[in-house]
């Protein structure tokens, strides 16, 4: 009977290993004419949280998609590489993933800031946007960032929005989320747990449109942001190559095509 038990255990191990081997087969292999060295030969591995529709998210079939994912795929092609988009689930972990060579680049709507530039290098901006305050439709006492004081404000952890709202509210009122989309959905529920959410204007507009959320933006952009691809500090070879590829996509119209598909406008300026 001990034998039988061991057989079952070994059988389970075998099945597990077999299915594990079947995991990494989605791409057809590198093309071989790469213009730059990457962590995995022939692949451009770029990461985002995967929770930031319409920039990076999964569709119902489980495929990673969105503006940044398509842009990353186009960049990869321009660099002679196969694209390998990765979702980390945690926005705050992205910098760590690049520093530890698990990602070639962050393409996860990471705003270029001085602080972040100390630990990673940023490419030229590939889109420009800005933070906007969203409130529930029934809320009328929040009209500017100053009014946020004393209110519960939802933001994504480690984001520039978190940094910004902390100038106005205390730690007690800070509600951090993994996903801006979820924060907005929570706001729409209209409970006391959230009075406002600060997030990107495109993200907010799309959520209102698609999911019929009971929320509205307050005023104009609170601040402007430039978003770039982040690479490991000192990896100038890859950085130059990303900048070159980005410029090429802008020049040949591919950038505008992708941007219009998602936003009906070019979001480069």
């Amino acid at each position, binding site marked *: 009977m001990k034998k039988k038990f061991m057989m079952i255990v070994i059988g389970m191990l075998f099945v597990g290993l077999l299915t594990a081997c079947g995991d990494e087969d989605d791409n057809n292999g590198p093309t071989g004419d790469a213009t730059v060295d990457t962590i995995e030969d022939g692949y451009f591995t770029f990461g985002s949280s995967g929770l930031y529709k319409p920039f990076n998210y999964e569709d119902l079939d489980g495929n990673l998609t969105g503006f940044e994912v398509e842009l990353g795929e186009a960049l990869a092609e321009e660099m002679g590489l196969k694209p390998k988009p990765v979702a980390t*689930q945690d926005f705050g972990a992205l910098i760590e993933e690049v520093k530890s060579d698990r990602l070639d680049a962050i393409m996860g709507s990471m705003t270029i800031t001085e602080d972040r530039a100390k630990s990673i290098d940023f490419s030229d901006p590939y889109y420009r946007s800005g933070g906007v305050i969203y409130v529930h439709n029934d809320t009328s006492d929040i009209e500017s960032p100053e009014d946020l004081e004393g209110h519960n404000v939802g933001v994504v952890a480690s984001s520039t929005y978190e940094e910004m709202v902390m100038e106005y509210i205390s730690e007690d009122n800070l509600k951090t989320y993994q996903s801006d989309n979820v924060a907005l959905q929570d706001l729409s529920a209209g409970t006391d747990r959230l009075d406002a959410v600060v997030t990107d204007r495109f993200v907010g507009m799309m959520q209102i449109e698609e999911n019929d959320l009971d929320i509205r933006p307050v005023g104009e952009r609170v601040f402007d942001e430039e978003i770039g691809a982040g690479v490991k500090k000192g990896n100038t070879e890859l950085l130059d190559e990303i900048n070159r590829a980005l410029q090429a996509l802008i020049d040949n119209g591919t950038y505008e095509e992708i941007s219009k598909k998602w936003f009906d406008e070019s979001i480069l300026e």
Partner: protein
Amino acid sequence: MGFWELFIETIPGYKDAIINTINITLLGLLIGLGIGLFFAFLKVSKLKVLNIIADMYIYLVRGTPLIVQIFILYFGLVQFVDLGRLLSGGIALGIHNGAYIAEIFRGSIQSIDRGQTEAARSLGMTSTMSMRRIVLPQALRRAIPPLGNQFIIALKDSSLVAFIGFQDLFNRAQRIQSSTGMAMESYIIVGIYYLILVLILTFIVNRIERALSKSERGVDHE
């Protein structure tokens, strides 16, 4: 979109997630069984120093949250070696469950009446022999029900690897919630997937238990 539409439309996307959850749980359990057996022997050993080592391990692992262990292996260890998501999560699950499994094995080994060992020794068996031929077969059978329990806990706890970005069931549910805004539906759907997996696991454990008790019947006179 309603519940059933979401359920049906997300089935293809859940396929990989189910496989990934099964893989990481199996990996965790295999490592956990090895670790558990090892430390159980240390705990029942007559050498005091081995007992202490086992106690230390169990205290350390049971005293810290699984999510902390997962983050140490995935984010901490990368300075020295990059294990990747599957291995970091699987090993963390194994280390964690190993501590509980060690206690299960220890309990079941000690539950076998000492008189049996003494009888075996008086018949001329060495202590290793009596352990292997008399005590362990019975102890293993007694360990199956609590082990099955632990396997179910491990399967559910594997959802924590979603937080290092491993594409398991829970991770998938979070993404569906994020992109559809259907929180209640998304999490009920993933709950159903876990229930199905637990059902299958329970069935397998029951079968093992029955197979073992059948072949033991002639030996054990309780």
